[in-house]
């Protein structure tokens, strides 16, 4: 008789344990696994389309992969100290992963290493740091983007040509890479003379002044390559003001209202676009994969695209060039 009691008690206990494990396991799957990711960008200034589009991509991925995302950023891209403070604050919150677009190649290295030490996964997006600590880097392959710009310029050249490059920040990794890409294509080419790289020192106005000076100095400049949006727009203004439209070819990077106008008006021949939406989307996707323990590629190239006046209104390019439907 005692046997049956024992038997039943054991059976009931086992069933209860099974229920408990089942429920716990299921809850664990559904609630606990919601991954927390903090995204710290260079800026969350809504007037800078690049970052807004990137944030769109972040939210789209967050929705799709069921990730909790917080997007932080400094007011201006140059406020390195504030970004470091933001990263420190993010570490305190202990998310599963931090996605970082570094404002400075060198100064964010210590705090990035602190992220890793805290056991938080680190994904670098767009702009890297001088450290190997990131689990994955999602960015445009800037050397290849530079090559694309170089090829676009080269295709315009008939025989002899003097080419100038205007860069934004001398120490920024992306600019060094882009310049390298341009050089790879144009250097050592008979007939092409590189006039050197002018440093716009972080402002459109500087770039404009530099371009004016340079164009006035060399009246036979064939083309200018601006390595980002402000440098391109600055150079474009100079070309327009000097009435050199059509004579001096301009190849730029990125997209903005002013750049579109330059493209529309024929001042700028082409611009190399990055894919910020993809960057945002893939950074979250990669963060999720890394947190889940999957192997993620160390470097993810989101690619670049050359836009000319001819293809700027093509269906597939519109969304890149004019990312926001609300803006008029």
């Amino acid at each position, binding site marked *: 008789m005692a046997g049956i009691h024992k038997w039943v008690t054991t059976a009931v206990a086992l069933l209860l344990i099974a229920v408990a494990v*089942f429920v716990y396991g299921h809850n664990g799957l559904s609630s606990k696994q919601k991954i927390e990711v903090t995204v710290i960008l260079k800026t969350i200034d809504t007037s800078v389309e690049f970052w807004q589009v990137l944030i769109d991509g972040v939210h789209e991925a967050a929705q799709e992969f069921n990730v909790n995302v917080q997007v932080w950023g400094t007011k201006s891209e140059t406020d390195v100290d504030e970004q470091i403070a933001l990263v420190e604050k993010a570490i305190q919150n202990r998310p599963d992963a931090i996605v970082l677009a570094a404002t400075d190649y060198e100064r964010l290295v210590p705090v990035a290493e602190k992220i890793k030490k805290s056991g938080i996964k680190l994904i670098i997006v767009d702009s890297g740091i001088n450290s190997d600590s990131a689990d994955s880097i999602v960015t445009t392959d800037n050397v290849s983007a530079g090559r694309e710009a170089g090829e676009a310029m080269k295709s315009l050249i008939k025989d002899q040509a003097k080419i100038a490059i205007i860069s934004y920040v001398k120490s920024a990794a992306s600019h060094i890479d882009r310049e390298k890409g341009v050089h790879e294509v144009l250097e050592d080419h008979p007939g092409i003379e590189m006039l050197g790289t002018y440093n716009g020192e972080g402002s459109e106005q500087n770039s404009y002044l530099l371009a004016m000076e340079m164009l006035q100095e060399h009246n036979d400049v064939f083309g200018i390559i601006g390595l980002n949006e402000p440098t391109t727009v600055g150079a474009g203004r100079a070309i327009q003001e000097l009435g050199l439209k059509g004579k001096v070819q301009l190849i730029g990077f990125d997209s903005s209202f002013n750049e579109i106008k330059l493209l529309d008006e024929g001042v700028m021949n082409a611009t190399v676009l990055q894919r910020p939406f993809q960057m945002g989307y893939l950074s979250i996707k990669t963060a999720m994969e890394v947190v889940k323990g999957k192997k993620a590629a160390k470097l993810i190239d989101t690619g670049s695209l050359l836009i000319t006046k001819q293809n700027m209104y093509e269906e597939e390019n519109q969304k890149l060039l004019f990312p926001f439907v609300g803006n008029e």
Partner: protein
Amino acid sequence: MFSRLPSIQTNMVLASVALIIMTSIMMSVTSFYLTKDSVNSTAQTYTTELVKQVNNNIKSYINGMKYMSDLVAGNYAVQAYLSSASFNSLKEEKDYKEAISEMLGAMLVSRTDISSANIFGYGGQFVSGRKELELNPNVDITSMNWYRNAKSMGGQSVISSSHVQPIFKDRYPWVVSLSRELVSKEGNKKLGVFLVDLNFSVMNDMFKDIRLGQRGYLFIIDSDGKIVYHPQQQLIYSNLKTEMIDKVLEVRNGTFISSQGSESRMYTVQDSEFGWKIVGVSYVSELAENQNNVLLSIIVLGIICIIIGIMISLFLSQRVSQPIKRLQGYMKEVEKGNFDIHVPGHKTVEIQRLARAFNMMVGKIKELMQQTVLDQEQKRKSEIIALQAQINPHFLYNTLDSIVWMAESNKSREVVLMTSALAKLFRSSISKGEELVAIKTEIEHITNYLMIQKMRYKNKLDYHIEISEAIQEYRIIKIIIQPLIENAIYHGIKMKQGPGFIRVACEETDTDIILIVEDNGNGMDEEKLKSLHLPASVTEGGRGVGVRNVQERLKLYYGAQYGLTYHSVLGVGTTVYIRIPKIRQVLEDERHGRNS
């Protein structure tokens, strides 16, 4: 102690548990499939409804634009302005332009959803509803898709996909364009193109917030498969994502599921009147997740049911088996020898009956046990009485007196004979102390006794013993016949005038032996005969004590159907029949038991 055999409780519990588990599993499986179907069909219905709703919203925008185009196409001023090759004066031309612009402007008042409404004449005329707009000099209008499509459709409205409208200076809005070629009332002259642009942000805002489940979304393509709206448009262009646009174009209205394993999606397609297709996309895995939730709750409920079922069956089986177990406990007590037990009543009929029967049985056993103890006591008493009867002091005194008389008369031969008979008599009765003796021994015993009595009574007593050889070896309890003979002498022959005769004989049946002691003495009347059947204790001592003792011992030893029967006629004589069973040999253990 019966560990190999399952108990009633085990059987009951096992049976009901098996039943409960089977039922639970069947119910669970059934309800799971029913719920699964309903989850799927609910999701499908919901998506279809939503897509229809979106379609209606879009349709209202498009119909508004169409209505505008109808108004413009039939407008007199428009017709006149566009069809006139030349105007009388610049002012007239300006007035017309002003009037049309006013009309278009009036349409746009309070219509923030409309970006612009414009007329492009084939003669180079341009009128816009928004006067502040200037044409973009860098854009060739005739190269625009909406312009070319309108031209080729000849007066039919054309709805474009969503696109950037670059035709105005410093403006690059996302719009959906409705364009229509304007034809003269007579229908023979093509006048120009009417364009109305709907701010795409109006639609975009509407679609953006539509989510089907956690990950599902909505997208729209036009009749060429171009994307009008897709939340992940950029991912599709860069091939990070693929959408089954070809399949969607094939389907007019309805649902299909793409087979991509865990990423399978359910497409719900709704064809709008103006050529767009609105598509709701839900992730099958999400539906499956719901199903998993349902499955989980069903399993949990099932297990809870099983647990409750097991507990109830345990409780019930215990209720059934517990009284039985209690009875078993009482029986154990009885086994141990405790007969002072009474099983209390029980609520159920069966157990009540069982308890009553048990109580009765125990009572009976107790009674029997008491009877046995009583019988044993009686037996011992009877034996002692028998022995006492044998060494009857009167008999001994009379015998010894006779011997003295004979010795005084110098009858030494008789003295020797009588003394030796007396000695033999005593020896045979004392001898081994066994309860059962051979009939032979008993006969020897009475022979000696009769011999002594014969010597005393001389001619007054005669006797004859006829016992066949066949029964000599059967067993009988000792000192049975002698008291009867003594009785016959003292109460039969002695009372009678003249000589007496005693005959001892035997009869035999298959199972029994009947010994007969017959005398021709005084006999007994009815009353006397009856009193012999009364128990020994009722009558006073002396007369008949020996006979009754014999009767009691026979009945105690052999059972009620054995014993003495009398046949007596007053003045003629008495015959006593002793009925005993044929017992040849005393069993060793029985003898042992009785001796101890």
